[in-house]
């Protein structure tokens, strides 16, 4: 699996796809942080842009993993899990490299907005968990792993609680009360699933170590373990095509 992982990284670099991530990591501090002086907004920009890069990189990596030439490598591996794990690790490493460049570029372009080293280091564990969750979630949303129905369901889990308030404003009394109540219930239920991630994101901006943050990280790790288990199960069953 390590050889496959190394080749994925080799291919990603030699095909120059990595320039998108690294270029973005340089451009973001130059364009968004150069005029800032606030360390909190720097940490928020880092978190959001790294998460966005994680989603982008994972979608590209999933597309690469779905190409017949790469699926043919799967025939040389003992299990599908090794294959998907190699691609997940590769996505994580690429995002991490972009994050390092992002931090270095901020140091160069926006030294005033650069947070204290202790603050930055304290925000790192939460950010790493958030990146991994983003990568796993995005992988679950790709055709490589999930069927269209599975992807739609998963998308609803994100989209409904995040956009519900705006959707409600567009639907003035068009639906009967009981249907609206049902939508509210679904939105709340999905919102509960998203809540730990939102809290973890807040933790990357204002990092602190206490019982609450520790519990939050634990809950999030459990959710992440559940997501990885779903990913492994879905991918195991997914029909692939070379011919």
């Amino acid at each position, binding site marked *: 699996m390590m050889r496959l992982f190394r080749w994925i990284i080799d291919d990603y670099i030699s095909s120059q796809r990595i320039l998108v991530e690294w270029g973005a990591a340089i451009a973001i501090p130059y364009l968004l942080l150069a005029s800032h002086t606030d360390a909190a907004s720097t940490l928020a920009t880092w978190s959001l842009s790294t998460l966005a890069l994680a989603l982008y990189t994972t979608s590209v990596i999933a597309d690469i993993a779905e190409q017949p030439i790469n699926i043919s490598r799967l025939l040389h591996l003992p299990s599908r899990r090794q294959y998907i794990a190699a691609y997940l690790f590769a996505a994580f490493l690429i995002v991490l490299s972009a994050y390092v460049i992002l931090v270095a570029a901020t140091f160069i372009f926006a030294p005033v907005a650069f947070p204290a080293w202790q603050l930055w280091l304290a925000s790192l564990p939460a950010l790493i968990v958030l990146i991994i969750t983003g990568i796993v979630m995005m992988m679950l949303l790709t055709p490589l792993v999930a069927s269209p129905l599975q992807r739609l369901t998963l998308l609803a889990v994100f989209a409904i609680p995040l956009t519900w308030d705006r959707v409600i404003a567009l639907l003035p009394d068009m639906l009967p009360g009981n249907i609206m109540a049902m939508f509210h219930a679904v939105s709340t239920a999905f919102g509960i699933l998203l809540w730990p991630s939102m809290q973890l994101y807040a933790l990357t901006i204002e990092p602190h170590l206490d019982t609450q943050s520790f519990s939050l990280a634990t809950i999030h790790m459990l959710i992440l373990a559940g997501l990885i288990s779903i990913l492994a199960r879905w991918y195991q069953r*997914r029909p692939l095509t070379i011919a």
Partner: protein
Amino acid sequence: MHYVSLTNLRIARTPITDVTLHIPEGSCFGIVGASGTGKSALLNAMAGLSGRALPGVSLAGSTAAPRPGSIGIVTPRIILPAHMTTLGLLTRQRTLLLNGDGQVDDDCQRAIRWCALEQYAQSAIGTLSLFNKRRVALALALVSKPAMVLLDEPTIDLAAHEQQVMIDILENLRDRNMTIVIATRGNTPMESLFDQIAVLSGGKIIAELSAQHIRDMQRTIMIRTDEIPTAAYEHIAAINNGIIVTRRNIVLTGEGVRSLAQILQVLLHYSVHIFCIEPRNHPLADLVMQARYPVVLAHRYPVRLLTNTIRESNATEEVAT
């Protein structure tokens, strides 16, 4: 012993509804059918890519997933990395199973030799022609010396002379005790490759052809000549019923094809100038055409004939043991 056994196979979201097929170990097996009949889906299923374990699929006598490296697959969909060299790509693929030792080099060189790619070993794949890329893809499938190679339309989009070279390479592979399964829509005259053929239509195998059937398939050959003298005309027409002679053309069908050498001797004897000798039909393409009328084809080449033969031979072996 059959290497692949498919029994009442149905694959969801593909045209395959009920396929029963037994592919003997070490044979070259053709799956012939029109476009969209599910040939590729069958190959994917044989490669173990269907996800869920499909009931009715057994490889090398086992229903478990195939051993890593035991199956090679070549399809026109495979796009090779342009920046790598042939040897580099093969080495990378081989080292997925083995550490980088002497055996890796030997295996890569062997795959290159089998696909006649010696002069392109160090070339960047991006600089190669489609035909050479297709051979690199074949070498990639062969580099781990798999027990079975699955080929989907190996000659599609190739020029006629390139198709012949590819068929020649595949003929050489057939002699190396490898199970070869080729899916084709019959656009290339490669019937000489096959030990057996199954015709796929409507999600089922509608006909099976044994080696004898393949040999006996109807062929038509046309000889274009200068004007044929009356004496030669009469001589040729008398040879057998499968020969149609006109002033400048001779068409051989059925039994007439077997008299080709004799006809050529007559033409040479009368000093008739021969412009060209060309096949006028592709038996595989004819099979695909005939698959539109499954009842007729099934009557001519009954299904389960090969299966029964295999069962009988297995039973004989068991009795002998």
